């Protein structure tokens, strides 16, 4: 960004006059225009005549209207406000008036303009600094840190003993698993069995009919087989191979091959 400081003030003024009469787009809002106009006064921003500035700005808005330029709303808001400020600065102070005086408002506007100009100046100085990747450089071949994560496991003899004790305790109080397993008709078994049987289930039949031989009479065995066979049937319904129905609560569950 070039700084306006280095340009001859007269040239600057002429540029400004030309600029604002034709090109509103080039401005970044009313404050920007005010700053441009203020520079034409060729005085320290602190001693700017806000009144003169207001007059200049209003003239600018008039000019724009003549040229039928579409002015954004905030330019017009600023114009209205400056007209108000102008009247405040010109008319004798009315004691009835509430709010800040014309001088206070003018002082703040001057402060805003000075601040904006200062920010533009330092922005230019900032951008003129040496920049990384343009004037100075970082390491071209950075080496990444390779992360080696090593996991070690921790266990003590006590952990070992407790774990073993736990297993043995369990074992002391139950018979060998293999015996127990004989009392259980697993879902896999039921599923295997059902898969071979569904082909024959053309008509509705009850679930009981599908229990394996030898599992119907002992209540313990029957419960296990019923549960697993039912679960297997649900699985097959889910697969779309079976239909299942029950006419009433506690009525027999009936099953039939799904028609394809």
């Amino acid at each position, binding site marked *: 960004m070039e700084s306006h400081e280095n340009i001859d003030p007269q040239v600057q003024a002429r540029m400004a006059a030309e600029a604002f009469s034709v090109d509103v787009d080039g401005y970044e809002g009313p404050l920007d225009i005010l700053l441009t106009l203020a520079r034409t006064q060729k005085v320290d921003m602190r001693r700017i005549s806000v009144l003169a500035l207001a007059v200049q700005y209003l003239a600018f808005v008039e000019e724009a209207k003549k040229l039928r330029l579409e002015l954004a709303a905030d330019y017009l808001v600023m114009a209205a406000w400056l007209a108000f400020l102008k009247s405040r600065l010109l008319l004798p102070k009315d004691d009835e008036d509430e709010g800040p005086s014309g001088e206070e408002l003018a002082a703040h506007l001057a402060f805003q303009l000075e601040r*904006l100009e200062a920010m533009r100046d*330092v*922005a230019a100085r900032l951008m003129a600094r040496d920049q990384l990747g343009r004037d100075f*450089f*970082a390491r071209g071949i950075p080496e990444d840190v390779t992360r080696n994560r090593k996991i070690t496991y921790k266990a003590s003899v006590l952990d070992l003993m407790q774990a073993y004790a736990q297993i043995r305790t369990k074992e002391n109080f139950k018979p060998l698993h293999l015996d127990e397993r004989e009392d259980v008709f697993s879902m896999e078994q039921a599923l295997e069995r059902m898969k071979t049987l569904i082909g024959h289930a053309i008509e509705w039949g009850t679930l009981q009919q599908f229990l394996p031989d030898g599992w119907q009479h002992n209540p313990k065995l029957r419960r296990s087989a019923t549960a697993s066979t039912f679960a297997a049937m649900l699985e097959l319904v889910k697969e779309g191979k079976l239909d299942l129905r029950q006419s009433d609560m506690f009525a027999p569950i009936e099953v039939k091959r799904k028609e394809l």
Partner: protein
Amino acid sequence: MSETPHESLFEAPPMAEQERMIEAILFASAEPQSKKQLEDRVPHGCDVSEALVHLRKRYDGRGVALIKVGEGYAFRTAPDLGFLMQKESVEVRKLSRAAIETLAIIAYHQPVTRAEIEEIRGVSVSRGTVDLLLDLEWIKLGRRRMTPGRPVTLVVTQLFLDHFGLETPKDLPGVKELRDAGLLDNRPPPSAIPGVISEDGEVDMGQSEEDEDQDDMFE
């Protein structure tokens, strides 16, 4: 709990060796490393601060320099040799005037709310401008201001400092003069000064800290 296996329970290596280690680590990383990060990587008991002082001195006047960036340390080529580096230079994105000014305002006034930036520039800050600066990781969101609406603030990042070769935001050009002139004061406008018409067309009366669409914008 992680433990580095090379951690010695006995003695830190001699200072010359510590210096070599810091040198190797900083050479290997493109990003600045904080003292804390360095301490985590060198053997236990090393005096990173002292090693850095030695190292900085050693590179004084060399083709690369050890610089401080915010909390971090990094090697960078000496700025006077930039002319040799055309091959290395990456096309720096040309920033718009709005982006440059917004960046400067954030740097000099940080932490600063969007409403305050608008009050200073006299125009609304477009979302694209802020997004661009966030994208570049030159700015980031700071704490919310404890004022009505709890607006979020913007601050510059370590990457910003690194990019412009600044050790701290205090090294920004002209920052002292601006402060002495009162131009960095947060001076609220007397009421009845027209504010900025923000992007959605609503007039923000300038004096208010709150900025409803700010939350929308940053969340």
